[in-house]
């Protein structure tokens, strides 16, 4: 109930901020790094609205599903962190909100008490703490911020010309957003949480790093090598994230991998925005901010809805493996319909909200091209290529999730619980908002700066796109009506199967089979493993009674970075732990030594 009210308030606040009602508040308490300050403008409004809407739906879904009371108790703190990040306007509030947002879901996963989720929670917490430390250091290093007694950040953009602070904040955003190569925690951590928490993490939390970059870094831009690197990393995430999603066999992990792809798309454009700001192209850099924030909102709606659907599927069947799911429309037509619409929204197809957002993202990309020289232009064209690969593979990934789970034959096991009618309500709420934005993009774009005026000079005809949605809808309705009124409802019959009995689940394509050509073509890049186990085979491997096949596809960073790093660090950490548990004298001696070292170093530090 508390989280519902909180989310509703956030939605209202976000809408008010978008409507042009800015606010600012300052605490009378002096605070550790200056007084606490909250500020809101249109940018905060978009991200607050994103978090609020996803929070609202997630709270609705969470109230329906049984969950551990400890997990339930943490939901409001998670929401509070999410809502505070876009409003924070001083270093202390921002870092505190960032930590609240990062730690709450980590604790929720830890409290789940499964071994697999504990490893995921650990990985997640390590990454998010590195991100938080980078953010804190970056904000503390921000020089000469007006109104900040200790030189720490106090709202607005970071002053240009201080590379260390900007780079640290950028690093914090890249890690927290799960941009490659900092992404390997995301497909581990997002799926193990309960469905509605996954929705919050993948729908709302991943938007916040993009907010951070827009708010702190974009106004002053960054050097072109850094900016182009960000764009390239984003493009790589978009392409490889979608391709990895095709290799993944778990419903929620596929969705999490597509999150990597979509965050990558946002960061690729943010990289272009940083470059444009560096080139003093303020109008187009502003358009980048609008496009990315709209993309974050519509992505949150679609991803939140699909994660809520995945949560319901998991709850009903106890299963998230796409190899064992299928044909669920027979058990809940509303959920199947919501999943299909969610797929259309996530793949950025008309007429849902993802469509105008993807359009303005791509259009802003193309508008930036003529402003660049041949070398940078070629790099941006390369990023466009990666984005397009991600779009093509992303559609296949969405089709795989939606069709593989809800269509085709029923595979084992049928739902243990009946899927209740209300299961589709919360995701349908998100998709209704998405549809409204898709059919009438002006609802959102009118409130983005330059959304109406400067975008009309850019190739982004949003009003007309909206009418396209209406028109297509109208044409469709007319055609369907014409077909049905002619008494042409098709007669139900057995499907054709070359004269054999009707095809069973063993003959029909699985979700993985649907994307098999992609997996074969890109196997050289992703290097999936192959693990085939045959059982009950009377004659060697020729007639197995049962078989098990898996193709674990590790992220490059796992064998290349993580495992060597852990092998290197583990003994050293063990030494430290021995000190921790050892005699108190040794402990005190080390503390004394560290103090002496700090005192010795003090005169050297500027």
């Amino acid at each position: 109930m508390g989280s519902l009210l909180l989310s509703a308030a956030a939605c209202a606040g976000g809408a008010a901020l978008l409507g042009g009602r800015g606010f600012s508040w300052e605490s009378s308490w002096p605070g550790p790094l200056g007084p606490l300050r909250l500020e809101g403008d249109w940018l905060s409004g978009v991200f607050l609205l994103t978090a609020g809407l996803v929070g609202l739906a997630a709270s609705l879904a969470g109230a329906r599903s049984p969950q551990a009371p400890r997990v339930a108790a943490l939901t409001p703190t998670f929401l509070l962190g999410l809502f505070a990040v876009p409003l924070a306007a001083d270093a202390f509030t921002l870092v505190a909100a960032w930590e609240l947002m990062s730690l709450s879901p980590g604790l929720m996963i830890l409290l789940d008490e499964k071994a697999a989720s504990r490893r995921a929670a650990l990985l997640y917490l390590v990454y998010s703490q590195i991100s938080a430390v980078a953010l804190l250091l970056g904000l503390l290093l921000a020089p000469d911020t007006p109104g900040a007694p200790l030189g720490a950040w106090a709202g607005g953009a970071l002053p240009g010309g201080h590379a260390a602070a900007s780079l640290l904040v950028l690093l914090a955003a890249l890690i927290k957003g799960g941009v490659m190569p900092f992404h390997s925690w995301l497909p581990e951590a997002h799926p193990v949480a309960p469905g509605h928490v996954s929705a919050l993490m993948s729908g709302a939390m991943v938007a916040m790093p993009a907010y951070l970059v827009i708010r702190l870094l974009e106004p002053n831009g960054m050097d072109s090598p850094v900016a182009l690197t960000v764009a390239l990393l984003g493009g790589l995430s978009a392409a490889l994230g979608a391709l990895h999603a095709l290799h993944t066999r778990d419903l929620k992990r596929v969705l999490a991998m597509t999150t990597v792809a979509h965050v990558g798309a946002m960061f690729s454009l943010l990289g272009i925005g940083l470059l444009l700001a560096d080139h003093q192209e303020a109008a187009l850099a502003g358009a980048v901010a609008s496009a990315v924030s709209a993309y974050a909102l519509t992505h949150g709606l679609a991803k939140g809805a699909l994660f809520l659907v995945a949560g319901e599927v998991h709850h009903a069947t106890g299963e998230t493996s796409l190899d064992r799911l299928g044909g669920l429309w027979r058990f809940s037509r509303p959920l199947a319909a919501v999943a299909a619409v969610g797929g259309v929204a996530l793949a950025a197809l008309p007429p849902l909200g993802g469509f105008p957002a993807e359009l303005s993202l791509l259009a802003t990309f193309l508008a930036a091209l003529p402003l660049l020289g041949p070398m940078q232009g070629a790099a941006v064209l390369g990023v466009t290529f990666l984005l397009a690969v991600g779009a093509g593979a992303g559609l296949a990934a969405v089709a795989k999730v939606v069709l593989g789970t809800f269509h085709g034959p029923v595979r084992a096991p049928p739902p243990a619980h009946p899927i209740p009618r209300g299961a589709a309500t919360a995701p349908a709420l998100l998709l209704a908002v998405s549809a409204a934005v898709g059919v009438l993009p002006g609802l959102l774009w009118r409130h983005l700066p330059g959304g109406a005026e400067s975008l009309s000079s850019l190739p982004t005809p949003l009003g007309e796109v909206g009418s396209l949605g209406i028109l297509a809808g109208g044409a469709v309705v007319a055609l369907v009506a014409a077909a049905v009124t002619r008494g042409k409802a098709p007669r139900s019959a057995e499907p054709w199967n070359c004269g054999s009995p009707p095809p069973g689940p063993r003959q029909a394509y699985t979700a993985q089979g649907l994307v098999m050509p992609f997996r074969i073509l890109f196997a050289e890049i992703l290097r999936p493993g192959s693990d085939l186990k045959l059982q009950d085979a009377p004659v060697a491997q020729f007639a197995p009674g049962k078989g098990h096949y898996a193709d674990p596809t590790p992220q490059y960073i796992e064998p290349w970075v993580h495992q060597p790093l852990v092998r290197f660090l583990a003994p050293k950490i063990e030494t430290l732990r021995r000190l921790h548990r050892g005699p108190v004298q040794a402990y005190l001696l080390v503390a004394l030594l560290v103090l002496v070292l700090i005192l010795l170093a003090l005169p050297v530090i500027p």
Partner: protein
Amino acid sequence: MNPAPQAAAALLLIAAAPLTVWAERRVKAWNQLRRGPGPLQPYRDLRRLWAKRALAPNTAGPGYASAPAVALGTVCAAFLLLPLSGTSSALGGGAGLLVLALVLALHRFLQAGQAFTTGTPFGGLGASRELFLGGLGEPAFLLAAAAIALKTGEAAVPASPLAASDPSTWLVLVSLTLLWVAESARIPFDNPATHLELTMVHEAMVLESSGWMLALYELGAAAKQTLLAALLLLLAVPLPESGATRILLVAAGSVVLSALLAAAESGIAKVRLFRASHILIMAALVAFLAGIVTYLERPGA
């Protein structure tokens, strides 16, 4: 920009779409020393199918019966993104090509969905290959749009054709032509004349469709081929700025292009799926090259 003539032009092109089927059949028949059907035969085929009652497999999910109409509706709406009867399109404005890419993606999603939901092996097979080839075509299309945006300032079909003296124009056209062949499900990507499971893509997806549903799918396929042929013509051929001549030339041009395609495909064999994917990747690289060449063509570069 008055939408009424644009809509009329779109309807005319959709109505002329079965003529492209006739042109192909006729050329192929000549090639095989047959006489071939008359121009009205594809229309008679459509009327025959439309009059028949359809069968829906009892394994198909909800919405199966409305899929053909929706799929046809998306293709029809896409015609409004081209400047058919005047210098600007009815919809899409300066981002028409991007909208077109996403509308075609929606069409692909619908087609694949209706095929997969039948639960038959053929449906899954067709859906799988359609998503694969279409997904690989997307980079080619978007990069061609990027090159056009660089040349003309907006990612839309320009009112006048691209300058034929620019090498990048030819690269864009090569890339889009390959894409047109792939999206039209023709040799070397797909062979609409066979029903071998080794080769089917589009035919596998509509294998369960019959009667009026099949008629709508067939019309949709012809319309999509005409749509992309019209795109190529608008980019490549100087046409009168407006009026009935423009649209009639586009319609006649798509029929001629289809005849040329039929003549070309009579001489080559369908390639296997993983060679077809290489052709599409090549198309994307050609479009990428077009973008880079455009930079070099700019004054002062």
